[in-house]
């Protein structure tokens, strides 16, 4: 690679190498200390048990995790949470983006209004919706009563569905902005050609929009699954994982094992298992997405 320049200006190229390493030094230190070292420590800790995590336990924590019903339950509802929020964000985000892609007056304003929740902290989202959904003093139940409908206790009867809804409220705008950029990147000629060939709106959507949007859909879907699998604040702030663990999202569960039960060995193993799951989801999506990608 560097053969030719090396022969001709040996000293210079060596000087640039030194400069490059000098400029990279802070980054090398940072990623070593704050990413790779913690991951090594996580793996080590996960092979230990006891209150100080100093008793070697081999793979015990992992086998315990696999057969722990609370962990299994938490894992299943978290996967449901991530998949439903991802499908929801893609469907709603794409639908809204397609509306905003049309020459409508005020589309810039709509785009802004739909994006606002994405910019709020999960603390705001959590506290606000806990108030709105409150069975006693929440505004939503008053709306229902005003419409002569029976009041609801969503956080008790449908906790998981409710936090999925709250998650979508916050994240659909993000998917919409990405889809809008994707739609604007599709050249008009494809639609014109399809129309000349007699394709109606449904077939243009199916055979032009969807395939050409595949890279955007793939990106939204990967980011959204990762975000969903890592959701924490929704359970911590809105439902406290309840009632009866019905909304015990995985990271919330790990958080409690680590900082309430103070079982660092077990919680480290649980953390690592979720990384493996996230990587597996990402690889599967990339494979599937690449296979369906088209060039233009």
């Amino acid at each position, binding site marked *: 690679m560097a053969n030719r320049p090396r022969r001709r200006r040996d000293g210079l190229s060596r000087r640039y190498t030194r400069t490059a390493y000098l400029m990279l030094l802070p980054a090398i230190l940072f990623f070593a200390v*704050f990413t790779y070292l913690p991951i090594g420590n996580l793996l080590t800790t996960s092979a230990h048990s006891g209150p100080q995590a100093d008793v070697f336990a081999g793979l015990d924590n992992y086998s315990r995790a696999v057969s722990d019903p609370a962990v299994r339950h938490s894992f299943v509802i978290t996967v449901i949470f991530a998949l439903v929020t991802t499908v929801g964000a893609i469907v709603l985000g794409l639908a809204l983006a397609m*509306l905003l892609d049309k020459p409508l007056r005020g589309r810039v304003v709509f785009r*802004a209004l739909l994006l606002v929740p994405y910019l709020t*902290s*999960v603390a*705001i989202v959590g506290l606000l919706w806990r108030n709105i959904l409150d069975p006693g003093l929440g505004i939503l139940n008053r709306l229902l009563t005003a419409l002569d409908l029976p009041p609801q206790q969503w956080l008790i009867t449908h906790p998981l569905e409710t936090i999925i809804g709250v998650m979508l409220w916050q994240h659909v705008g993000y998917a919409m902005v990405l889809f809008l950029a994707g739609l604007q990147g599709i050249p008009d000629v494809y639609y014109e050609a399809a129309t000349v060939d007699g394709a109606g709106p449904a077939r243009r959507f199916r055979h032009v929009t969807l395939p050409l949007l595949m890279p955007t859909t793939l990106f939204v879907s990967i980011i959204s699954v990762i975000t969903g699998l890592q959701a924490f604040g929704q359970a911590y702030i809105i439902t406290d994982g309840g009632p009866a663990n019905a909304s015990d999202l995985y990271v919330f569960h790990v958080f409690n094992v*680590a900082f309430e039960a103070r079982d*660092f060995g077990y919680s480290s193993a649980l953390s690592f298992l979720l990384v493996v799951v996230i990587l597996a989801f990402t690889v599967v999506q990339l494979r599937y997405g690449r296979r369906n990608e088209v060039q233009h």
Partner: protein
Amino acid sequence: MLNRMSTAGRVLAYVTLLGASAITVLPLLYMVSLALQTEAESLSGDPVLIPETPMWGNFLELFERAPFANFIVNSLVVAGAITVSHLLFDPLVGYVFAKFRFPFRNTLFLLVIATMAIPFFVKMIPLYVMMSNLGWLDTYQGLITPFLMDAFGIFLMRQFIQPVPDELIDAARIDGVGEFGIYWRIVLPQVKPALAVLGVFTFVFQWNEFLWPLVATSTEEMRTIPVGLTLFSQEYFTIWNLTAAGAVLLFLPTALLFLASQRFFVRGIAITGMK
């Protein structure tokens, strides 16, 4: 694309967009209303939409009930320091990977990029243990150091620096400009818009960050706004008007930035998606 839309289609589009915008914005407006209600109004079983008289004093009372001034300072220091660090290091590292050839470049780049696949919570427990050993729990350095750089920011900056012409850099070298001077005076000015995106997004995300400040602080005085506010509401779970006032304060900087340039945010998100 096809520009003609039937009247019915147009009406349907407007109704859908109005409905969707109402769902996103009305809860936030209700939050502002709550923030201005009396305690009695905010607790009434018959919720109030518009408070009788707006209680601007709620914003002051917040500071008496909780060390809210600390929360604000902490959030500013932490989000501010992390943003400055990103602006210093992400483009520098991106520049090296974009413009230099050196042994192990690809390996090192891969090692940096691979950290994008590692979600933060994985590091939560080992970082907590590390900070605890260093005595850095409940300190600014403990809140700041885990976020000093970011692989995504580095990648983004590399993508933007790559198109800067090599001739520009070589010419500066011939003129005797030092290597750091080349980066600072020649390369950085070429990527100002990308730097703005990096800075604003880093600040907003760190300002909103919840999990790490929750884990890494133990005294009330060291909490950032999102954590301080959440724990405040758990402690005084009935004082909804003050909680809402805190939420309004937490959202204010982001809302102002967004109002100043919503196009900037939209473009920034699109850039991160396109790469």
